Protein backbone atom coordinates (compact mmCIF):
# COMPACT_ATOMS: atom_id res chain seq x y z
CA UNK A 1 0.00 0.00 0.00
CA UNK A 2 2.84 2.37 0.84
CA UNK A 3 4.87 1.45 -2.22
CA UNK A 4 6.97 4.29 -3.58
CA UNK A 5 8.29 3.71 -7.10
CA UNK A 6 11.47 5.51 -8.15
CA UNK A 7 12.61 5.90 -11.75
CA UNK A 8 16.18 4.99 -12.71
CA UNK A 9 17.55 8.49 -12.19
CA UNK A 10 15.96 8.77 -8.77
CA UNK A 11 17.20 5.32 -7.75
CA UNK A 12 20.72 6.25 -8.86
CA UNK A 13 20.60 9.43 -6.76
CA UNK A 14 19.31 7.49 -3.78
CA UNK A 15 22.03 4.87 -4.15
CA UNK A 16 24.72 7.55 -4.06
CA UNK A 17 25.85 7.46 -7.70
CA UNK A 18 25.47 11.25 -7.85
CA UNK A 19 27.24 11.99 -4.60
CA UNK A 20 26.51 12.02 -0.92
CA UNK A 21 24.45 15.21 -0.92
CA UNK A 22 21.93 13.90 -3.49
CA UNK A 23 21.70 10.60 -1.61
CA UNK A 24 21.04 12.57 1.58
CA UNK A 25 18.33 14.63 -0.15
CA UNK A 26 16.70 11.54 -1.69
CA UNK A 27 16.71 9.78 1.68
CA UNK A 28 14.66 12.56 3.27
CA UNK A 29 12.32 12.82 0.26
CA UNK A 30 11.69 9.05 0.34
CA UNK A 31 11.00 9.09 4.09
CA UNK A 32 8.50 11.91 3.63
CA UNK A 33 6.94 10.11 0.65
CA UNK A 34 6.61 6.95 2.76
CA UNK A 35 5.01 8.84 5.67
CA UNK A 36 2.54 10.51 3.29
CA UNK A 37 1.81 7.39 1.25
CA UNK A 38 3.08 8.96 -2.01
CA UNK A 39 3.46 6.53 -4.90
CA UNK A 40 6.07 8.52 -6.81
CA UNK A 41 8.15 11.68 -6.89
CA UNK A 42 7.55 14.59 -9.26
CA UNK A 43 10.16 16.82 -10.94
CA UNK A 44 10.00 20.44 -9.79
CA UNK A 45 10.90 23.56 -11.77
CA UNK A 46 11.93 25.80 -8.84
CA UNK A 47 12.18 26.03 -5.07
CA UNK A 48 11.84 28.72 -2.42
CA UNK A 49 13.46 27.92 0.94
CA UNK A 50 12.54 29.13 4.43
CA UNK A 51 15.83 28.19 6.11
CA UNK A 52 17.53 31.51 5.38
CA UNK A 53 17.65 32.71 8.98
CA UNK A 54 20.03 31.89 11.84
CA UNK A 55 18.48 29.43 14.28
CA UNK A 56 21.56 28.05 16.00
CA UNK A 57 24.54 25.75 15.94
CA UNK A 58 22.74 22.62 14.72
CA UNK A 59 21.43 24.35 11.61
CA UNK A 60 24.85 25.81 10.78
CA UNK A 61 26.50 22.39 11.24
CA UNK A 62 23.96 20.69 9.00
CA UNK A 63 24.35 23.29 6.24
CA UNK A 64 28.18 23.14 6.50
CA UNK A 65 28.09 19.35 6.23
CA UNK A 66 25.95 19.60 3.09
CA UNK A 67 28.28 22.19 1.54
CA UNK A 68 31.28 19.98 2.39
CA UNK A 69 29.58 17.10 0.58
CA UNK A 70 29.30 19.29 -2.51
CA UNK A 71 25.55 19.89 -2.30
CA UNK A 72 24.17 21.98 -5.17
CA UNK A 73 20.59 22.89 -5.96
CA UNK A 74 19.57 21.67 -9.41
CA UNK A 75 16.60 24.01 -10.04
CA UNK A 76 16.37 27.82 -9.67
CA UNK A 77 16.16 28.32 -5.92
CA UNK A 78 15.43 31.48 -3.94
CA UNK A 79 15.53 32.20 -0.22
CA UNK A 80 12.93 33.58 2.10
CA UNK A 81 13.42 36.73 4.19
CA UNK A 82 16.37 36.34 6.55
CA UNK A 83 16.65 37.32 10.21
CA UNK A 84 18.52 40.54 9.38
CA UNK A 85 18.81 43.17 6.63
CA UNK A 86 22.04 41.94 5.06
CA UNK A 87 22.04 44.79 2.54
CA UNK A 88 22.25 47.38 5.35
CA UNK A 89 24.95 46.33 7.86
CA UNK A 90 24.89 49.91 9.16
CA UNK A 91 21.56 49.13 10.86
CA UNK A 92 23.39 46.75 13.24
CA UNK A 93 26.16 46.94 15.83
CA UNK A 94 29.50 45.72 14.50
CA UNK A 95 29.62 42.60 16.67
CA UNK A 96 25.92 41.78 16.39
CA UNK A 97 25.96 37.96 16.58
CA UNK A 98 22.48 37.65 15.07
CA UNK A 99 23.55 39.65 12.03
CA UNK A 100 26.69 37.54 11.58
CA UNK A 101 24.80 34.28 12.08
CA UNK A 102 22.31 35.27 9.41
CA UNK A 103 25.16 36.19 7.04
CA UNK A 104 26.73 32.75 7.61
CA UNK A 105 23.47 30.92 6.91
CA UNK A 106 22.86 32.87 3.71
CA UNK A 107 26.47 32.36 2.51
CA UNK A 108 26.16 28.60 2.98
CA UNK A 109 23.02 28.61 0.85
CA UNK A 110 24.83 30.72 -1.75
CA UNK A 111 27.56 28.06 -1.92
CA UNK A 112 24.87 25.53 -2.74
CA UNK A 113 23.79 27.65 -5.71
CA UNK A 114 20.80 29.47 -4.21
CA UNK A 115 19.98 32.94 -5.55
CA UNK A 116 20.34 35.54 -2.86
CA UNK A 117 16.97 37.21 -3.13
CA UNK A 118 15.85 37.22 0.48
CA UNK A 119 12.14 37.75 0.17
CA UNK A 120 8.82 36.43 1.39
CA UNK A 121 7.37 37.57 -1.97
CA UNK A 122 9.14 35.31 -4.51
CA UNK A 123 6.27 35.88 -6.95
CA UNK A 124 7.73 39.39 -7.52
CA UNK A 125 10.95 37.93 -8.93
CA UNK A 126 11.58 37.49 -12.66
CA UNK A 127 11.50 33.68 -12.31
CA UNK A 128 7.84 33.73 -11.29
CA UNK A 129 6.41 30.26 -12.00
CA UNK A 130 3.64 29.64 -14.51
CA UNK A 131 0.31 27.90 -14.33
CA UNK A 132 0.71 24.13 -13.97
CA UNK A 133 4.38 24.26 -12.85
CA UNK A 134 5.27 21.92 -9.98
CA UNK A 135 7.32 23.94 -7.52
CA UNK A 136 8.49 23.49 -3.90
CA UNK A 137 7.78 26.68 -1.95
CA UNK A 138 7.75 26.90 1.81
CA UNK A 139 6.73 30.46 2.72
CA UNK A 140 3.05 30.33 3.64
CA UNK A 141 1.76 33.49 1.92
CA UNK A 142 3.70 32.60 -1.24
CA UNK A 143 2.33 29.04 -1.24
CA UNK A 144 -1.26 30.29 -1.14
CA UNK A 145 -0.52 32.90 -3.82
CA UNK A 146 1.27 30.41 -6.11
CA UNK A 147 -1.46 27.77 -5.94
CA UNK A 148 -4.38 30.14 -6.13
CA UNK A 149 -3.44 33.26 -8.09
CA UNK A 150 -0.74 31.80 -10.39
CA UNK A 151 -2.11 28.27 -10.66
CA UNK A 152 1.29 26.70 -10.01
CA UNK A 153 1.35 23.67 -7.74
CA UNK A 154 2.97 23.33 -4.34
CA UNK A 155 2.22 21.92 -0.93
CA UNK A 156 3.19 23.93 2.12
CA UNK A 157 6.78 22.71 2.19
CA UNK A 158 9.01 22.74 5.26
CA UNK A 159 12.54 23.78 6.13
CA UNK A 160 15.08 21.15 4.88
CA UNK A 161 12.39 19.32 2.87
CA UNK A 162 12.45 22.36 0.55
CA UNK A 163 16.28 22.25 0.42
CA UNK A 164 16.32 18.50 -0.28
CA UNK A 165 13.72 19.03 -3.03
CA UNK A 166 15.97 21.71 -4.58
CA UNK A 167 19.04 19.42 -4.41
CA UNK A 168 17.28 16.38 -5.91
CA UNK A 169 14.86 18.36 -8.12
CA UNK A 170 11.98 16.20 -6.88
CA UNK A 171 9.07 16.32 -4.43
CA UNK A 172 6.68 13.55 -3.27
CA UNK A 173 3.50 13.47 -5.39
CA UNK A 174 0.88 14.23 -2.74
CA UNK A 175 -1.66 16.89 -1.79
CA UNK A 176 -1.92 19.92 -4.06
CA UNK A 177 0.40 18.45 -6.70
CA UNK A 178 -2.50 16.15 -7.62
CA UNK A 179 -5.53 17.38 -9.62
CA UNK A 180 -8.09 15.68 -7.42
CA UNK A 181 -6.93 17.51 -4.29
CA UNK A 182 -7.38 21.01 -5.76
CA UNK A 183 -11.20 21.13 -5.75
CA UNK A 184 -12.91 23.92 -3.83
CA UNK A 185 -14.64 22.70 -0.68
CA UNK A 186 -15.99 25.50 1.54
CA UNK A 187 -17.99 28.23 -0.18
CA UNK A 188 -17.88 31.75 1.26
CA UNK A 189 -20.63 34.09 0.09
CA UNK A 190 -19.88 37.83 0.28
CA UNK A 191 -23.44 38.96 -0.54
CA UNK A 192 -24.02 40.30 2.96
CA UNK A 193 -21.15 42.82 2.88
CA UNK A 194 -21.29 46.50 1.86
CA UNK A 195 -20.22 46.71 -1.78
CA UNK A 196 -17.70 49.51 -1.24
CA UNK A 197 -15.67 47.31 1.13
CA UNK A 198 -14.75 45.12 -1.84
CA UNK A 199 -12.42 47.77 -3.24
CA UNK A 200 -10.44 48.20 -0.01
CA UNK A 201 -7.00 46.62 0.57
CA UNK A 202 -7.46 46.30 4.33
CA UNK A 203 -10.79 44.52 3.84
CA UNK A 204 -9.18 41.63 1.92
CA UNK A 205 -6.72 40.98 4.71
CA UNK A 206 -9.52 40.90 7.28
CA UNK A 207 -11.48 38.56 5.00
CA UNK A 208 -8.37 36.35 4.84
CA UNK A 209 -8.29 36.23 8.61
CA UNK A 210 -11.99 35.27 8.79
CA UNK A 211 -11.63 32.55 6.15
CA UNK A 212 -8.30 31.25 7.51
CA UNK A 213 -9.76 30.77 10.97
CA UNK A 214 -12.94 29.18 9.67
CA UNK A 215 -12.02 26.80 6.87
CA UNK A 216 -9.63 24.36 8.61
CA UNK A 217 -7.70 22.28 6.09
CA UNK A 218 -10.36 22.66 3.37
CA UNK A 219 -9.97 24.71 0.18
CA UNK A 220 -12.08 27.88 0.41
CA UNK A 221 -14.03 29.29 -2.53
CA UNK A 222 -14.89 33.00 -2.66
CA UNK A 223 -17.84 33.97 -4.80
CA UNK A 224 -18.61 37.39 -6.28
CA UNK A 225 -15.30 39.11 -5.82
CA UNK A 226 -15.03 42.06 -8.22
CA UNK A 227 -12.95 41.25 -11.32
CA UNK A 228 -11.17 44.56 -10.66
CA UNK A 229 -9.52 43.00 -7.59
CA UNK A 230 -5.78 43.73 -7.61
CA UNK A 231 -2.88 41.34 -7.22
CA UNK A 232 -1.94 43.12 -3.98
CA UNK A 233 -5.43 42.53 -2.61
CA UNK A 234 -5.22 38.84 -3.52
CA UNK A 235 -1.85 38.48 -1.82
CA UNK A 236 -3.15 40.38 1.21
CA UNK A 237 -5.90 37.79 1.43
CA UNK A 238 -3.37 34.96 0.92
CA UNK A 239 -1.02 36.20 3.65
CA UNK A 240 -3.74 36.71 6.26
CA UNK A 241 -5.48 33.40 5.50
CA UNK A 242 -2.18 31.51 5.79
CA UNK A 243 -1.14 33.28 9.00
CA UNK A 244 -4.46 32.64 10.73
CA UNK A 245 -5.05 29.08 9.57
CA UNK A 246 -3.90 26.16 7.46
CA UNK A 247 -4.97 27.49 4.07
CA UNK A 248 -2.66 26.49 1.21
CA UNK A 249 -4.99 27.30 -1.70
CA UNK A 250 -8.26 29.11 -2.44
CA UNK A 251 -10.45 29.75 -5.46
CA UNK A 252 -12.10 33.08 -6.36
CA UNK A 253 -14.81 32.56 -8.97
CA UNK A 254 -14.10 34.50 -12.16
CA UNK A 255 -10.77 35.72 -10.77
CA UNK A 256 -8.29 32.89 -10.10
CA UNK A 257 -7.13 30.67 -13.00
CA UNK A 258 -8.62 27.36 -11.86
CA UNK A 259 -12.00 28.95 -11.10
CA UNK A 260 -13.51 30.41 -14.29
CA UNK A 261 -16.89 29.34 -12.91
CA UNK A 262 -18.31 27.62 -9.83
CA UNK A 263 -18.60 24.20 -11.44
CA UNK A 264 -14.93 24.18 -12.48
CA UNK A 265 -13.76 25.42 -9.07
CA UNK A 266 -15.71 22.66 -7.30
CA UNK A 267 -14.60 20.00 -9.86
CA UNK A 268 -18.26 19.39 -10.72
CA UNK A 269 -19.25 18.69 -7.15
CA UNK A 270 -21.24 20.66 -4.56
CA UNK A 271 -19.63 22.60 -1.71
CA UNK A 272 -19.10 20.60 1.48
CA UNK A 273 -20.12 23.66 3.47
CA UNK A 274 -21.49 27.13 2.70
CA UNK A 275 -20.80 30.12 4.93
CA UNK A 276 -22.16 33.63 4.51
CA UNK A 277 -19.61 36.22 5.62
CA UNK A 278 -21.30 38.92 7.74
CA UNK A 279 -20.10 42.46 8.44
CA UNK A 280 -19.71 41.39 12.06
CA UNK A 281 -17.16 38.72 11.06
CA UNK A 282 -15.02 41.45 9.53
CA UNK A 283 -15.39 43.72 12.58
CA UNK A 284 -14.37 40.85 14.85
CA UNK A 285 -11.29 40.18 12.72
CA UNK A 286 -10.43 43.88 13.00
CA UNK A 287 -10.84 43.69 16.79
CA UNK A 288 -8.49 40.71 16.88
CA UNK A 289 -5.82 42.80 15.17
CA UNK A 290 -6.37 45.80 17.42
CA UNK A 291 -4.39 46.53 20.56
CA UNK A 292 -6.07 47.65 23.78
CA UNK A 293 -3.09 49.83 24.63
CA UNK A 294 -3.37 53.60 25.02
CA UNK A 295 0.35 54.04 24.41
CA UNK A 296 1.22 56.53 21.68
CA UNK A 297 2.18 55.20 18.25
CA UNK A 298 5.98 55.01 18.10
CA UNK A 299 6.52 53.13 14.85
CA UNK A 300 4.68 52.48 11.62
CA UNK A 301 5.66 49.25 9.81
CA UNK A 302 4.61 48.66 6.22
CA UNK A 303 5.26 45.67 4.02
CA UNK A 304 4.52 42.15 5.25
CA UNK A 305 4.71 40.43 2.85
CA UNK A 306 7.34 42.62 1.17
CA UNK A 307 5.91 45.75 -0.46
CA UNK A 308 5.25 45.57 -4.21
CA UNK A 309 6.08 48.23 -6.80
CA UNK A 310 2.41 49.16 -7.00
CA UNK A 311 2.21 49.61 -3.24
CA UNK A 312 5.29 51.86 -3.35
CA UNK A 313 3.51 54.01 -5.94
CA UNK A 314 0.44 54.17 -3.71
CA UNK A 315 2.65 55.09 -0.74
CA UNK A 316 4.48 57.72 -2.77
CA UNK A 317 1.20 59.47 -3.62
CA UNK A 318 0.07 59.43 0.00
CA UNK A 319 3.33 60.89 1.31
CA UNK A 320 3.79 63.54 -1.36
CA UNK A 321 6.26 66.11 -0.06
CA UNK A 322 5.37 65.58 3.62
CA UNK A 323 7.80 64.43 6.29
CA UNK A 324 7.33 61.90 9.04
CA UNK A 325 6.75 63.19 12.57
CA UNK A 326 9.95 63.26 14.72
CA UNK A 327 8.38 60.97 17.35
CA UNK A 328 7.60 58.21 14.84
CA UNK A 329 9.76 55.74 12.96
CA UNK A 330 8.38 54.75 9.57
CA UNK A 331 9.83 51.37 8.49
CA UNK A 332 9.13 50.03 5.02
CA UNK A 333 10.01 46.40 4.20
CA UNK A 334 10.54 45.17 0.69
CA UNK A 335 12.78 42.85 -1.28
CA UNK A 336 16.18 43.96 -2.60
CA UNK A 337 14.76 43.10 -6.04
CA UNK A 338 11.82 45.52 -5.89
CA UNK A 339 14.02 48.15 -4.20
CA UNK A 340 16.58 47.79 -7.02
CA UNK A 341 13.82 48.17 -9.61
CA UNK A 342 12.70 51.41 -7.97
CA UNK A 343 16.17 52.98 -8.16
CA UNK A 344 15.39 54.56 -11.53
CA UNK A 345 12.39 56.42 -10.07
CA UNK A 346 11.96 59.40 -7.73
CA UNK A 347 10.58 57.18 -4.96
CA UNK A 348 13.81 56.30 -3.06
CA UNK A 349 14.83 59.98 -2.67
CA UNK A 350 11.29 60.96 -1.75
CA UNK A 351 11.11 58.33 1.02
CA UNK A 352 14.52 59.26 2.40
CA UNK A 353 13.59 62.94 2.50
CA UNK A 354 10.36 62.04 4.23
CA UNK A 355 12.42 60.35 6.96
CA UNK A 356 11.39 56.77 6.20
CA UNK A 357 13.74 53.83 6.79
CA UNK A 358 13.68 51.21 4.04
CA UNK A 359 14.49 47.68 5.16
CA UNK A 360 15.21 44.85 2.72
CA UNK A 361 16.10 41.13 3.06
CA UNK A 362 14.17 40.69 6.31
CA UNK A 363 10.87 41.28 8.02
CA UNK A 364 10.57 43.90 10.73
CA UNK A 365 8.43 41.66 12.96
CA UNK A 366 11.18 39.22 13.78
CA UNK A 367 14.31 41.26 13.42
CA UNK A 368 15.92 43.37 16.09
CA UNK A 369 15.12 46.62 14.26
CA UNK A 370 11.84 47.28 16.05
CA UNK A 371 12.61 45.68 19.40
CA UNK A 372 13.61 48.94 21.13
CA UNK A 373 10.45 50.79 20.14
CA UNK A 374 8.68 52.36 23.15
CA UNK A 375 4.98 52.49 22.37
CA UNK A 376 2.58 51.05 19.83
CA UNK A 377 3.28 49.81 16.35
CA UNK A 378 0.82 50.61 13.59
CA UNK A 379 0.90 48.35 10.53
CA UNK A 380 -0.97 47.94 7.25
CA UNK A 381 -0.33 44.19 7.40
CA UNK A 382 -2.69 41.72 9.05
CA UNK A 383 0.17 39.23 9.14
CA UNK A 384 2.42 41.71 11.00
CA UNK A 385 -0.41 42.48 13.43
CA UNK A 386 -0.99 38.74 13.94
CA UNK A 387 2.62 37.74 14.69
CA UNK A 388 4.13 41.02 15.96
CA UNK A 389 2.72 41.11 19.52
CA UNK A 390 4.01 37.58 20.31
CA UNK A 391 7.37 38.00 18.59
CA UNK A 392 8.22 41.44 19.90
CA UNK A 393 6.11 41.87 23.02
CA UNK A 394 4.72 45.17 21.70
CA UNK A 395 1.14 46.40 21.26
CA UNK A 396 0.30 46.36 17.55
CA UNK A 397 -2.61 47.96 15.72
CA UNK A 398 -3.76 47.06 12.21
CA UNK A 399 -4.84 49.97 9.98
CA UNK A 400 -5.19 50.84 6.30
CA UNK A 401 -2.14 52.21 4.49
CA UNK A 402 -3.84 55.65 4.42
CA UNK A 403 -4.22 55.67 8.20
CA UNK A 404 -0.66 54.41 8.64
CA UNK A 405 0.77 57.22 6.54
CA UNK A 406 -1.42 59.83 8.26
CA UNK A 407 -0.19 58.65 11.64
CA UNK A 408 3.44 58.65 10.51
CA UNK A 409 3.09 62.29 9.44
CA UNK A 410 0.82 63.68 12.18
CA UNK A 411 2.49 61.76 14.99
CA UNK A 412 -0.76 60.38 16.32
CA UNK A 413 -3.41 57.87 15.46
CA UNK A 414 -7.11 58.20 16.10
CA UNK A 415 -8.89 54.95 16.90
CA UNK A 416 -11.76 54.56 14.47
CA UNK A 417 -14.88 52.46 14.75
CA UNK A 418 -14.51 51.43 11.16
CA UNK A 419 -11.74 49.15 9.97
CA UNK A 420 -10.74 51.79 7.43
CA UNK A 421 -11.27 55.50 7.29
CA UNK A 422 -11.23 56.26 3.58
Amino acid at each position, binding site marked *: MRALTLDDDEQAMRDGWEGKAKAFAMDLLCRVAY*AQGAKKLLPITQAHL*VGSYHSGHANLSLLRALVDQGAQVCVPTTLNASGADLSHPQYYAEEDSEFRGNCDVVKLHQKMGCRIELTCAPYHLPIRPERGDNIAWAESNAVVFANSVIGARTNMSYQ*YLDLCAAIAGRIPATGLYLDQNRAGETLYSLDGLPKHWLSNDAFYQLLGLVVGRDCGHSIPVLSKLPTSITEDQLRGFSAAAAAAGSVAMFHAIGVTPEAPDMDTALHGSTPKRVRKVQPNDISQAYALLSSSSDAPVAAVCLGAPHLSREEFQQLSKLIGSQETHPSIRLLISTSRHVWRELQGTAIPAQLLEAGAQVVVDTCTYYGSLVREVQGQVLTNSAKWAYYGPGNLGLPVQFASMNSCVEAAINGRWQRSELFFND
Partner: protein
Amino acid sequence: MTSRLQGLALVNGQASGPLLVMDEPISFWGGVDPSSGEIIDRLHPQCGQSIRGKILLLPGTRGSTAGPGALLETLFNANGPSGVLLAQDDLVTLIGSTLIQSLQKTPPPVVKLTAEPPGFFITGTHYQINDAWIQKLTN
Protein backbone atom coordinates in the same frame (compact mmCIF):
# COMPACT_ATOMS: atom_id res chain seq x y z
CA MET B 1 -5.93 -4.96 28.65
CA THR B 2 -3.19 -5.11 26.08
CA SER B 3 0.08 -3.48 27.06
CA ARG B 4 1.55 -3.50 23.54
CA LEU B 5 0.55 -1.59 20.45
CA GLN B 6 1.93 -1.58 16.92
CA GLY B 7 2.12 1.57 14.82
CA LEU B 8 3.97 2.61 11.69
CA ALA B 9 7.68 3.29 12.31
CA LEU B 10 8.70 6.52 10.54
CA VAL B 11 12.07 6.79 12.31
CA ASN B 12 13.33 3.50 13.74
CA GLY B 13 14.90 3.21 17.17
CA GLN B 14 14.51 2.35 20.84
CA ALA B 15 13.51 4.73 23.60
CA SER B 16 11.71 4.82 26.91
CA GLY B 17 10.42 7.50 29.21
CA PRO B 18 7.37 9.03 30.84
CA LEU B 19 4.56 9.96 28.46
CA LEU B 20 3.44 13.54 27.88
CA VAL B 21 0.12 13.75 26.07
CA MET B 22 -0.09 17.04 24.17
CA ASP B 23 -3.71 18.21 24.06
CA GLU B 24 -3.13 20.50 21.08
CA PRO B 25 -0.68 20.74 18.18
CA ILE B 26 2.49 22.66 19.06
CA SER B 27 4.79 24.93 17.08
CA PHE B 28 8.41 23.91 17.70
CA TRP B 29 9.36 27.33 16.30
CA GLY B 30 8.52 29.78 19.07
CA GLY B 31 6.50 27.28 21.10
CA VAL B 32 9.34 25.32 22.72
CA ASP B 33 12.56 26.77 24.17
CA PRO B 34 15.45 24.91 22.44
CA SER B 35 17.78 25.72 25.37
CA SER B 36 15.60 23.92 27.94
CA GLY B 37 12.86 21.91 26.22
CA GLU B 38 10.19 23.90 28.05
CA ILE B 39 6.88 24.60 26.30
CA ILE B 40 6.68 28.40 26.16
CA ASP B 41 3.61 28.90 23.94
CA ARG B 42 1.38 30.77 26.40
CA LEU B 43 -1.77 29.56 24.65
CA HIS B 44 -0.79 25.85 24.76
CA PRO B 45 -2.48 23.67 27.42
CA GLN B 46 0.89 22.07 28.34
CA CYS B 47 2.69 25.42 28.65
CA GLY B 48 5.35 25.30 31.38
CA GLN B 49 5.97 21.55 31.05
CA SER B 50 9.14 20.15 29.52
CA ILE B 51 9.35 17.82 26.53
CA ARG B 52 12.91 16.84 27.47
CA GLY B 53 13.31 13.07 27.83
CA LYS B 54 9.57 12.47 27.42
CA ILE B 55 7.72 10.21 25.04
CA LEU B 56 5.49 12.77 23.34
CA LEU B 57 2.03 11.90 22.13
CA LEU B 58 1.56 14.62 19.55
CA PRO B 59 -1.60 15.57 17.65
CA GLY B 60 0.54 17.27 14.97
CA THR B 61 2.30 20.61 14.82
CA ARG B 62 1.18 24.04 13.69
CA GLY B 63 2.62 27.42 12.84
CA SER B 64 5.84 28.18 11.02
CA THR B 65 7.21 26.01 8.23
CA ALA B 66 10.61 26.62 9.88
CA GLY B 67 9.61 24.16 12.64
CA PRO B 68 12.16 21.48 11.62
CA GLY B 69 15.09 23.84 12.31
CA ALA B 70 13.79 24.66 15.78
CA LEU B 71 13.27 20.96 16.59
CA LEU B 72 16.76 20.21 15.27
CA GLU B 73 18.29 22.76 17.69
CA THR B 74 16.24 21.34 20.58
CA LEU B 75 17.37 17.77 19.82
CA PHE B 76 20.98 18.87 19.28
CA ASN B 77 20.98 20.50 22.74
CA ALA B 78 19.68 17.20 24.20
CA ASN B 79 16.48 18.95 25.26
CA GLY B 80 14.15 17.09 22.90
CA PRO B 81 11.78 14.19 23.44
CA SER B 82 13.16 10.65 23.75
CA GLY B 83 10.48 9.42 21.33
CA VAL B 84 7.42 10.73 19.49
CA LEU B 85 4.05 9.07 18.88
CA LEU B 86 2.14 10.85 16.13
CA ALA B 87 -1.65 10.85 16.30
CA GLN B 88 -1.68 12.88 13.05
CA ASP B 89 0.72 13.00 10.13
CA ASP B 90 3.43 15.49 10.92
CA LEU B 91 6.35 16.35 8.68
CA VAL B 92 8.00 18.79 11.10
CA THR B 93 8.69 16.00 13.60
CA LEU B 94 9.70 13.55 10.89
CA ILE B 95 12.16 15.97 9.25
CA GLY B 96 13.74 17.27 12.48
CA SER B 97 14.11 13.76 13.93
CA THR B 98 15.52 12.29 10.71
CA LEU B 99 18.11 15.01 10.17
CA ILE B 100 19.54 15.00 13.70
CA GLN B 101 21.21 11.73 12.67
CA SER B 102 23.45 13.61 10.25
CA LEU B 103 24.81 15.54 13.25
CA GLN B 104 25.93 12.27 14.87
CA LYS B 105 23.12 12.20 17.42
CA THR B 106 20.70 9.36 18.06
CA PRO B 107 17.26 10.37 16.77
CA PRO B 108 14.09 9.92 18.80
CA PRO B 109 12.10 7.07 17.26
CA VAL B 110 8.93 8.38 15.57
CA VAL B 111 5.88 6.14 15.32
CA LYS B 112 2.66 7.00 13.56
CA LEU B 113 -0.26 5.58 15.50
CA THR B 114 -2.72 3.52 13.50
CA ALA B 115 -4.97 2.96 16.50
CA GLU B 116 -5.40 4.68 19.87
CA PRO B 117 -7.13 2.24 22.25
CA PRO B 118 -9.07 4.18 24.91
CA GLY B 119 -7.15 4.37 28.17
CA PHE B 120 -3.87 3.07 26.72
CA PHE B 121 -2.00 6.37 26.85
CA ILE B 122 -1.70 8.08 30.24
CA THR B 123 0.51 11.11 30.92
CA GLY B 124 3.27 10.29 33.42
CA THR B 125 3.18 6.52 32.81
CA HIS B 126 6.38 5.02 31.37
CA TYR B 127 6.40 3.56 27.88
CA GLN B 128 9.01 1.92 25.71
CA ILE B 129 9.31 2.26 21.93
CA ASN B 130 10.99 -0.43 19.86
CA ASP B 131 10.74 0.55 16.19
CA ALA B 132 7.02 0.15 15.41
CA TRP B 133 6.11 -1.31 18.82
CA ILE B 134 4.96 0.65 21.87
CA GLN B 135 4.94 -1.05 25.27
CA LYS B 136 3.43 0.24 28.49
CA LEU B 137 5.89 -0.33 31.35
CA THR B 138 3.75 -0.05 34.52
CA ASN B 139 3.37 -3.02 36.92
